[in-house]
C-alpha cells in the first residue's frame, strides 16, 4: 500500500505538486496520466525518496519515506523492494547491457554467481523482446527503444514487489508496445506486484491499468477504476482521453 497525503513540491518559484493525495493498494496497477510537465516523474521520484517533498506525507507499507536517511541501511532495504524504469532509461553506459540488467544480482544483498546472474539477465531481456546477442553490447550501441526495454528488464530483474514505470512504451513500435503492455500486466497478475506506471499512450492505459489517476494543476484531478474513465463526466479527463485541442486544458502551458 502506497499512500500520499497532501504532497507539495516546488522548484524555485515553480509549484509543481500542490497537494497530491493518492493511495495505491497492494497488488494493484495504477496508471498516472497528465499533461507534459505536470509533475508525474517528480511524483514517482518523491515516493522513491530521490526528491524530498516540501510538505506532505508519503508512506509505503506504513513506512514514512521522507524519514529515511540517505545511505542508511533501512533505506537500502526499503529500495530493495522497488524496481524503477526511468523516463530516459538511465542505463549505466560504462557497463554491458547484461551487467546493467543484472546490476542488483552482481552485488549487495542479492548477489549471486556471475553465470547465474547472466542467465537471469538474458531471460529478462528475452521477456522484453531482446535477443541474447544484445547482452554483450554497451547501451550506447542500442537504439532508443532498445535502451528503454533494457531499462525495463533491469527494473524487473530482481523481481521487486513494487514497480514504477516512467513511460515504458514511449518510443516503441506498436507491436513492441503491445508486448510491453502484456508484460507489465503479467508482472502485476502473476507476481502480485504493485505497479505505478506513467504513460501518455491510451492503449497502454487500457491494457495495464486497474485504476487511473489524472494529475493536473499539481493535484489529482480524477481517480477511479479504468472502466469508469470514459464516462467520468470530468471535462479535463475527457479532453485528455480524446486528445482534443478544445476544452478546459490549455494547449500552451
Amino acid at each position, binding site marked *: 500500500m502506497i499512500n500520499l497525503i497532501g504532497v507539495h513540491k516546488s522548484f524555485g518559484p515553480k509549484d509543481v505538486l500542490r497537494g497530491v493525495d493518492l493511495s495505491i493498494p497492494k497488488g494493484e496497477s495504477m496508471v498516472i496520466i497528465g499533461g507534459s510537465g505536470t509533475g508525474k516523474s517528480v511524483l514517482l521520484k518523491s515516493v522513491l525518496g530521490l526528491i524530498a517533498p516540501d510538505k506532505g506525507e508519503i508512506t509505503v507499507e506504513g513506512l514514512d519515506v521522507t524519514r529515511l536517511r540517505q*545511505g542508511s541501511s533501512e533505506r537500502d532495504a526499503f*529500495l530493495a523492494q522497488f524496481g524503477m524504469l526511468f523516463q530516459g532509461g538511465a542505463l549505466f*553506459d560504462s557497463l554491458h547491457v547484461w551487467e546493467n540488467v543484472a546490476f542488483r544480482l552482481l552485488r549487495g544483498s542479492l548477489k549471486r554467481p556471475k553465470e547465474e546472474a547472466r542467465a537471469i539477465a538474458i531471460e529478462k531481456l528475452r521477456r522484453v523482446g531482446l535477443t541474447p546477442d544484445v547482452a554483450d553490447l554497451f547501451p550506447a550501441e542500442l537504439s532508443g527503444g532498445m535502451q528503454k526495454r533494457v531499462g525495463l528488464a533491469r527494473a524487473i530483474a530482481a523481481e521487486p514487489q513494487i514497480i514504477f514505470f516512467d513511460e515504458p512504451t514511449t518510443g516503441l513500435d506498436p507491436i513492441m508496445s503491445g508486448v510491453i503492455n502484456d508484460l507489465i500486466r503479467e508482472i502485476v497478475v502473476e507476481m502480485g506486484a504493485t505497479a505505478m506506471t506513467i504513460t501518455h499512450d491510451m492503449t497502454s492505459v487500457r491494457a495495464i491499468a486497474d485504476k487511473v489517476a489524472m494529475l493536473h494543476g499539481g493535484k489529482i484531478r480524477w481517480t477511479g477504476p479504468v472502466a469508469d474513465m470514459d464516462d467520468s463526466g470530468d471535462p479535463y479527463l475527457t479532453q485528455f482521453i480524446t486528445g482534443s485541442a478544445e476544452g478546459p486544458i490549455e494547449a500552451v502551458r
Partner: protein
Amino acid sequence: MRFLATIGAAILGMLAAIGRVALFAADTISHILRPPWYPREFVTQIMQIGYFSLPVVGLTTIFTGGALALQIYAGGARFSAEAVVPQIVAIGMVRELGPVLVGLMIAARVTSSIAAEIATMKVTEQIDALVTLSTNPMKYLTLPRVLAATLVMPVLVAVGDIIGIMGGYLVGVNRLGFNAATYLKNTLDFLEPLDIVSSLSKGAVFGFVAALMGCYFGMRSGRGAQGVGAATKGAVVAASVLILAANFILTELFFAA
C-alpha cells in the same frame, strides 16, 4: 555600503563552500569503514588513475628535469657554481616540481574526467538509478576514485621524480659534460629521507584533492550539457588551486626551520 555587502556575501559564500567540501570529504572517508565495498571499482580506478597516467607523468617530468639542468647550469655559471647541477635538480624535482607537476597533470587528466563522468551520470539520472538499485553513489563512485588516487599518486610522484632526475642527468651528461657516475653519486648523496617523504606525502594529498574535487563538482552538477561543462571546469580550477595552496602549506610544514 553596497560594496561591503557584496564582499560580505562573497566571503560567506566561500565559507559555505568550504564547509560543504569538508562535509563531503568527511562523508567520503567515513565509507572506508562501512561496508559494502566495491573492490572491482577500486581496481578499475587504480588502472585508470595510476597506470594510464604514467605516459603523461613521464613526458612532463623528463622535459622539466632537462630544462631545469640547463637553467641551473647557466645560472650557476655566473658565480662558478656549475657543479651543483645534480644536487639542485634532485632537490628541485623531488621537493617541489615532481609533486606539483604530477599533481597538476592529474588535475587536468583525472579530475576533469571524473567530474565529466559523474556529472553526466547525474544529468542522465544514472545516479538516481544507482540509488534505486540500493547502491550508495558515495561508496560506488566517490570512495573508489578518491582512495585510488590517494594511494596511487605517491607512486606516480616517485616515478615522476626519478624520470625528472633522469632528464637532468641526460642533459647533464650529454650536453653539459658531467661525468655520468659522478652525477648519479652526487644526486644520491645529496637527497635526504625527508625530501622523499615530503615528496610522496604531497603526492598523496594532491591525489586526494584531485579526485575529491572531481567527485564533488560532478555530484553537484547542474542540469544539461551546460551543467556538465560547468562542473568539469569548476573541478579542474578548484583542484589546481587547492593543489598549489596545499603545496605551499606542506612545504612550510616540512621545511620551514
